[in-house]
């Protein structure tokens, strides 16, 4: 029988292996090789490209520190808020009669491509408040506040995608003009778009998880006198935690891949670059393949620990099964 021969599994695997080899393994190895070569990939320069990333000698051209910090900000803020809001909506929507409508509404942004989404939000954030919805709302609110005698920065439109000042300066001049690191108005504005786009995804996955919690457990808790908040904290979240971890991992990998949203909305200007946009500009706009490749390798290194954790957890779950 053909199924017994040793090479048969390899035969079935071959198409996949060829595709992986051509489109994943070869480019990865070539990228690593180029990261040790000079601008035009002609001669070896050792660790110079990595030194460039660490020392950040040309912040006007390629602010590597800011890009790395921005990726960290995306990773934390985006993941945290997307999971928290998605979980909240999943729990609350499960309790209303128009659940399907509510969920569909939250989910719709997911059906829009990132580029289209970015173009739409560029209009939303437009500086001219005749066009920009966000500024129309904030300047309107600022006007109301002024009428009741409260002065705030809200009466002036905010350059949401350009202003790299501290987020609180949208409202007031009190506090520092520049918070340390990537806490900037424009980064927050970009991350908000990402959250708006991805909340539907977390909501759907978590709500599927919620449905699988047996009602007996919840009823037992109620009989024992637990209030709804305690049930949420002590029962729902612990039971959901494997799902939450899976969702968070997906989101973290998503943040590392962040590119189109930043590229279309700000082009990485005003310190909004993330590693992916920076490496693209460095390699394909400026033509410096050395630093570009090194940045891509750094991005790969970022993903490795997350990958390892995910695979470990997977194996662990297989074992306890």
């Amino acid at each position, binding site marked *: 029988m053909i199924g017994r021969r040793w090479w048969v599994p390899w035969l079935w695997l071959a198409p996949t292996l060829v595709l992986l080899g051509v489109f994943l393994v070869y480019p990865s190895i070539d990228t690593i090789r180029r990261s040790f070569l000079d601008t035009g990939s002609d001669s070896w320069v050792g660790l110079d490209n990595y030194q460039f990333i660490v020392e950040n000698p040309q912040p006007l051209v390629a602010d590597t520190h800011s890009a790395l910090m921005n990726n960290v900000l995306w990773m934390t803020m985006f993941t945290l808020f997307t999971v928290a809001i998605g979980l909240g909506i999943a729990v609350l929507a499960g309790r209303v009669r128009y659940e399907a409508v509510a969920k569909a509404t939250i989910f719709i942004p997911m059906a829009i491509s990132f580029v289209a989404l970015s173009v739409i939000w560029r209009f939303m954030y437009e500086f001219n408040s005749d066009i920009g919805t966000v500024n129309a709302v904030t300047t309107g609110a600022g006007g109301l506040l002024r009428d009741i005698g409260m002065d705030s920065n809200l009466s002036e439109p905010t*350059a949401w995608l350009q202003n790299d000042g501290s987020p609180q300066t949208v409202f007031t001049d009190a506090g520092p003009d520049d918070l340390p690191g990537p806490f900037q108005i424009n980064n927050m504005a970009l991350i908000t778009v990402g959250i708006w786009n991805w909340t539907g995804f977390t909501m759907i996955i978590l709500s599927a998880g919620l449905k699988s919690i047996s009602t007996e457990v919840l009823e037992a808790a109620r009989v024992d006198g637990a209030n709804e908040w305690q049930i949420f904290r002590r029962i729902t979240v612990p039971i959901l935690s494997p799902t939450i971890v899976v969702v968070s991992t997906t989101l973290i990998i998503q943040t590392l891949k962040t590119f189109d949203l930043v590229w279309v909305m700000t082009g990485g200007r005003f310190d909004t670059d993330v590693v992916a946009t920076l490496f693209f500009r460095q390699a394909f706009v400026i033509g410096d393949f050395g630093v570009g490749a090194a940045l891509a390798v750094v991005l790969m290194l970022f993903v490795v620990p997350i990958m390892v954790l995910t695979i470990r957890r997977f194996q662990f779950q297989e074992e306890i099964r």
Partner: protein
Amino acid sequence: MSTDFRPRSLPLFTLLALFVVALSFAACGDDDDGATATPGDGTPTDGPTATQPADIGAVSVLGQWGGAELETFESVVAPWQTETGGDMKFTGTRDIISLLTLNVEGGSPPDIAIPSEIGLLRKFARAGDLVPLSACGLEEEVRANFPQAFIDLGTVDGELYGFFFKADGKATIWYNPGFFADQSYEPLTADATFDDLLALSQEIEDDGVVAPWSIGVESGGASGWPGTDWLQAILMNNVDGGLVANDGLVDGSVPWTDPAVKEAWEKLGEIALEDGWASQGSGDGIVATNFLDAIFPLFEDPPEAALHHQAGFAAGAIVEQFPNAVAGTDFDFFPWPGGAVIGSADIVYAFNDDEATCSMMKYLATAAAQQIWVEAGGAISPNTGVELSAYPDAVIANAAERLTEAETFRFDLDDSIGGATQQAIWAGVLEYVTKPGDLDSILSGIEDAAVAQRAAAEEE
């Protein structure tokens, strides 16, 4: 209850299906950078029995045009297609530097490229990727028909590689003649000074009807470039030793920290950062306003600003936004005080000397081909064989005359430099407009980028 699960599973399933659709859309969204068009598929006049010219094959062209501009370019190429039986495969992208670099690096360059940046020309020519015009037997003709300034720009290490196709004049200040007449403001002339420009701005500000200027430098990833046009106009016209500094910045003999260069930046600040002078309100407003949107406040009814500095393409943008606007009465320009002319142009160069490629190169260089776009409007031809009478209106004819007969002419500064330095200049403009106090560190940052770029170029 497990019975609850069934009716609910349906919407959930629908949503998951939607999710899959969304993912596929997201995947599609990534490749809408390039638009491919094959014009002239139908040749209505040629019946099947008509004598077909010898088919010389297809030529791939990488350019920047899409929409109406692409249609115009197709009409330019159409006579060549009919005459030679050749075909054009045009790829248009706004991101031509990335795409061209990628194609050349990947070993599959187009036959002909038409970018507006000339930094790449030097790089490709020195790497041996390009064929000189002499390989197509085109060199004498180009030398005879184009101004020397454009010949020099197409030359690398003594060899002529490219000619220019569609040019635009910069250092022009747009205004609304009707509004100027109402307010009795006088447009400036080429022999005015920077102080005259400041005085005019102050007069408009004092009258308080509109803001003197409308300024916007937002342009996505290229944000900041309109500011570099300002800087070059000021440097060449209003700074002592500015011409020398301009040339020095291009060849590296003058650093960006040079006092003349710094003076140009400060003079930019004297207008753009003067409180109340820009209708956008503040530095944040200037960097957040798109360069095209910044043209229009002058021509609204009532106008919101009086002056706008922009290249000749502003005329096309005005007509598109206000279809009833008439050149000369509703919009016009005056030269930047000082009169030195800055231009930009799309350069045409070839990556091989195949018969079809050469045939198309020869065609595009002719006055007849360039005149087609001139007559369609919105373009100036650097080919001296194109008559001024071919231009559709007096405003653009005036711009064309300025460009081809300029006494002092320089190519766009940042487009001449390109690479990382260009990125640094753009970023520098954005930073200066929002944080003017950092000027010294901005200039030394640009100089660092320029030094590194030259060092990398020498190694190659």
